[in-house]
């Protein structure tokens, strides 16, 4: 038994010559009332049991993905002079946020097959196995989703933004937008050589509302009627208060 364990311990590092050690500047993002986006520093090191292999350079890919949601992409067409929604395609799961950072051009760092296997690039991270029957051009709908989200800063392709020092230390920073949704943001790091993934590591950044923001959100979900009444009470007393205050000012 002990011999087996020893053998495993000795064999384990040998099976994977290079592994990732990861650090995050923060593994929690607190959304407060004055939240205005956040910058996350992702850094780490490559651990080796043997000298750096010769040949192809080591590359690093980092992805950060927000919680996935179902949505409909709709397209407008001109009907009788007016632009209206005509076609809609359901996207099964699209991350609310997705950033992919690399040390080099994405297509050179990760092969097409590895991208397919690990869902690294943005188009791979979106799953649209939904109903595409009767939709003339499903591809353009997916492209539109990426285009709109990229324009809003929700989808980011950050090629050549990871600093890799001496094939060992790497670091990058990813900015999270102000319109962040709550949830677990999966952070993945891939080490690649010649486009093949050598090692990968996954960590989670928890994004959640705190304080008043959290309390209000919870109340609106769990006791909507009380929440609605509270909104009305605030509205009515504010209206009455302002009226009384102005009268006091005038007299």
């Amino acid at each position, binding site marked *: 038994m002990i011999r087996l364990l020893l053998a495993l311990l000795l064999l384990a590092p040998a099976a994977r010559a290079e592994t990732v050690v990861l650090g995050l500047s923060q593994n929690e993002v607190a*959304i*407060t*009332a*004055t*939240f*205005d*986006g956040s910058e996350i520093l992702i850094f780490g090191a490559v651990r080796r049991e043997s000298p750096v292999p010769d040949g192809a350079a080591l590359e690093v890919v980092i992805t950060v993905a927000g919680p996935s*949601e*179902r*949505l*409909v*992409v*709709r*397209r*407008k*067409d001109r009907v009788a*002079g*007016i*632009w*209206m*929604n005509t076609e*809609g395609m*359901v996207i099964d799961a699209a991350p609310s946020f997705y950033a992919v950072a690399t040390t080099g051009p994405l297509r050179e760092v990760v092969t097409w097959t590895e991208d397919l296997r690990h869902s690294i690039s943005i188009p791979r991270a979106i799953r649209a196995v939904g109903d595409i029957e009767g939709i003339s051009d499903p591809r353009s*709908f997916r492209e*539109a*989703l990426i*285009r*709109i*989200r990229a324009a809003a800063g929700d989808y980011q392709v950050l090629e050549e933004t990871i600093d890799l020092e001496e094939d060992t230390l790497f670091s990058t920073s990813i900015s999270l937008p*102000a*319109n*962040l*949704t*709550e949830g677990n943001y999966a952070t993945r790091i891939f080490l690649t050589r010649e486009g093949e993934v050598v090692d990968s590591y996954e960590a989670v950044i928890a994004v959640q*509302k705190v304080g*008043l*923001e*959290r309390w*209000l*959100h919870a109340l*609106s*979900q769990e006791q*909507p*009627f009380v*929440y*609605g*009444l*509270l*909104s*009305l009470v*605030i*509205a*009515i007393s*504010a*209206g*009455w*208060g*302002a*009226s009384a205050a*102005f009268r006091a000012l005038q007299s």
Partner: protein
Amino acid sequence: MQIYLPIAEVSVNAFLLLGIGGIVGILSGLFGVGGGFLITPMLFFVGIPPAVAVATSANQIVAASVSAVLAHFRRRTVDLKMGTVLLAGGLVGSALGVLLFNYLRGLGQIDLFVSLCYVIFLGIVGGLMFMESLSALRRASRPGTVPRRRRHGLAHSLPLKVRFRVSGLYISVIPPILIGLSVGVLSAIMGVGGGFIMVPAMIYLLHMPTKVVVGTSLFQIIFVTAFTTLLHATTNHTVDMALAVILILGGVVGAQLGSRIGARMRAEQLRILLAGLVLAVCFKLGLDLVLTPREVYSLDPEGIG
């Protein structure tokens, strides 16, 4: 100063929101309109999701209207009896409107329908008001000619006649109830209090005195928008209290200013200003429907069942 809104889940400049609340508040006090037809598009513009914008503006309209109606109560320009009759129709109408809203949302046509409603109603109402107040101004500048008002219409020949003392009317309750009902349907679909339809309807269809119209419309709007707020809070969870409080802060102050400015202005001048504003919003929305959009695709996370 940026502020993160807990329900809308976006970060917006607080002073921008205060300004929007203030402008709409002034209009609400001045014209007796809730201001929803301005606040909702303005909130879209600063990046608030449409569902949250519609629900929260209903909440803000409650506050602005309460603030403004108190000023009108002191001047005795609220016809409580007429307000209650309109309200009865309005509550039924807004419940029907929410059903229609959810049906159209399922079809993915709600944006188009809302825009079309805005263009059609703002166009008709604005155009009528503009022409009417222009001729009223012309009459007023030529002394000697007495404005002739049609005193007898359908409202006088239908049964269930009631005396509305504050308005000085003795008419059937059926037309006010129908007006309340249709305004209720429209206000639920368009996410507004409905004052900009209610005010002209009271002037031109019920022949109520203009001074009473504003206060009575505000009175009725409070209850319809309060009902809408509760409905949105319980079914869609889209009322953002933080957003509402900021809008309200700006709005209540604006409403007080507005109702004081309004007391010093002539009714015809008020009407022609409102008509111009209504037509401007109508023109902008109409243009958006016809011009080629920059992005023909849109994302709809809430569009599923």
